[in-house]
């Protein structure tokens, strides 16, 4: 069974700090939504409210259209995976996986077969008898996932499940979690501070800041069309380049006039910042058309090379270009840069301190 989850105007304060200030989020049945944001943005609080470990000061939580705001954690039918594995150290892998069934009074035979089935699903067949301390971190987290899924929950909650693992294991398990989630079609909420994780796994990514939703969109949209400067700079790499508004809807950037969009309108002649991805700039030889610049650092990243450049006015700019074109652009060499002819995101000029 797969159900939609709705968060409506959730508010939560801890003393004087506001963890959630009116969070609205609609999660469709079977969807995997990642809550992404810097620490303290309220993503974990939101997840814990869905789990029932925290209660909201106000607002509503709906599962399958039913208000579950006041339903205690153990009657919510959720499965949860924690950052710190959280396997019961006194139980074997199989006992851990079947614990939820034991609590529900399932027969021993059913528990055994379900534990077997789920350990197979998470890629640990034959490890039924292993105790948590005999398993690696990645294996423990697989068992934790199996345990969460064993009770056939309506919603699966993942609280930074990969952040305690090695890079390689993390990558592996992340694909595995997505495969299983798609296979079971279970509504899933995933909390992470790792944007790569969020972008690669989720159907939609909800970027949070200061207890509020900044933008919730598919990864590609989030990357290509960030709604706010915060999202733009939090997700992926961004250049913040000084520019001047030509009129209400165009901006003058590096000698070029480009259509502009943003959170608010700016009057003609206003100094603004343009947020531009490194791949949004074309780099060419010193004689080509564009703003002259000097290459400071060239970092080889495989298929692309990232250049750190300085324009004549002293602005630092990052630009990505295919590695095969980067050969001539050694540090110290002169070149020109030119933004691609696309609408750019404009924002207020950021003060020096920040």
């Amino acid at each position, binding site marked *: 069974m797969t159900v939609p989850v709705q968060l409506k105007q959730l508010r939560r304060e801890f003393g004087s700090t506001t963890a959630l200030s009116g969070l609205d989020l609609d999660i469709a049945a079977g969807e995997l939504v990642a809550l992404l944001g810097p620490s303290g943005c309220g993503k974990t609080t939101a997840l814990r409210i869905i*789990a029932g470990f925290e209660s909201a000061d106000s607002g509503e939580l709906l599962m399958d259209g039913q208000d579950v705001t006041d339903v205690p954690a153990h009657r919510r039918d959720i*499965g*949860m995976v924690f950052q710190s594995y*959280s396997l*019961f*150290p*006194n139980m074997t892998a199989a006992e851990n996986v079947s614990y939820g069934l034991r609590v529900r009074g399932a027969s021993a035979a059913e528990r055994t077969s379900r534990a077997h089935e789920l350990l197979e699903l998470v890629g640990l067949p034959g490890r039924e008898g292993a105790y948590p*301390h005999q398993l690696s971190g990645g294996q423990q987290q697989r068992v934790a996932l199996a*345990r969460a899924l064993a009770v056939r929950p309506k919603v699966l909650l993942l609280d930074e499940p990969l952040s305690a693992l090695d890079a390689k294991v993390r990558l592996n398990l992340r694909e595995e979690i997505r495969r299983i989630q798609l296979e079971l079609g279970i509504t899933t909420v995933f909390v992470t501070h790792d944007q790569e994780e969020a972008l690669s796994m989720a159907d939609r990514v909800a970027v949070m800041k200061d207890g509020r939703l900044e933008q919730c969109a598919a990864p590609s949209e989030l990357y290509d069309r960030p709604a706010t400067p915060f999202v733009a700079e939090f997700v992926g790499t961004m250049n913040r380049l000084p520019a001047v508004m030509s009129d209400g809807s165009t901006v003058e950037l590096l000698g070029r006039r480009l259509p502009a969009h943003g959170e608010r309108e700016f009057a003609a002649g206003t100094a603004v910042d343009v947020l531009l991805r490194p791949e949004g700039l074309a780099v060419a030889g010193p004689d080509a058309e564009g703003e002259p610049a000097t290459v400071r650092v060239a970092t080889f990243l495989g298929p692309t090379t990232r250049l750190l450049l300085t324009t004549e006015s002293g602005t630092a700019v990052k630009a990505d270009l295919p590695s095969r074109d980067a050969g001539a652009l050694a540090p110290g060499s002169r070149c020109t840069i030119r933004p691609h002819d696309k609408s750019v995101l404009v924002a207020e000029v950021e003060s020096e301190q920040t």
Partner: protein
Amino acid sequence: MARLNTRAPVLTVAALYFLVPIAASLWFTIDDTDGISFEAYTKGLGSEGLITSLTLSVGIGLATVVLGLLLMVPTMVAVALRLPKLRRTVETLCMMPLVVPPIALVAGVTSVLAWQQDLAATPLYGTFQALINPDFPLILVIVYTVMSLPFLYRSLDAGLRAVDLRVLVEASRSLGASRVQSLWQVVAPNLRQAVMGGAVLSLAMVLGEYSVASVLGFRPFAVWMVEAGDSEAQLSVAAAMLSLLFTWGLLLLLTALAGGRTRTSRTPRTSRTPRTQRKTS
């Protein structure tokens, strides 16, 4: 290698420190003018007062452990799960008995027990009578419980730190377990070792405690032993040897009970293997 070289002398010195007095006591009990005799032991086992005082000590010891655990386990679990801010306060309170010497404690207890005369006409008189009943002085259980708080605290605290109880309880709640089920099926098994450790330490403390019982005028094993020593030194030392064996047996039994299925992830086996390998190579 350097570590092995320093380890052997240290262990030898430690072993000598413990074994020499025991060996000397053993020699003292069996050394007779006509050679070796086990008379002190045979006499000791049959001597008047030994069994009664030993039973009393074990009874008081077990009651102390039960009372102490009933007091400390729920407190510590509640602090770990719900009231982490109170941890310092609980720790300070539990460590107090280490700072207050037992003699000072007894002085206080004695003056409280002296109220008895003023209460002769009230129902509280019966309570006082029960407290100082020489067959099973409850006052000793109470005083020993206070004295065992540091042992219980340290042991339970170590057990609680080894597992993230909060997350474990949340995990079990999310899987559908009620609070009671979580406490019984998840918290309790993971504290078993710590509980047993604390129980063993408290029990050992009670079995060897002399000053409080002696000042209050009761006659558990330690007091009996000292009294017996006044008249028959050999008998007293023989009893001490027997009590040593008895206590060891008891501790081994409790440790065996604590083992069983309980495993904690604190020290994965793998961390131990390299050391043994080093030794053999």
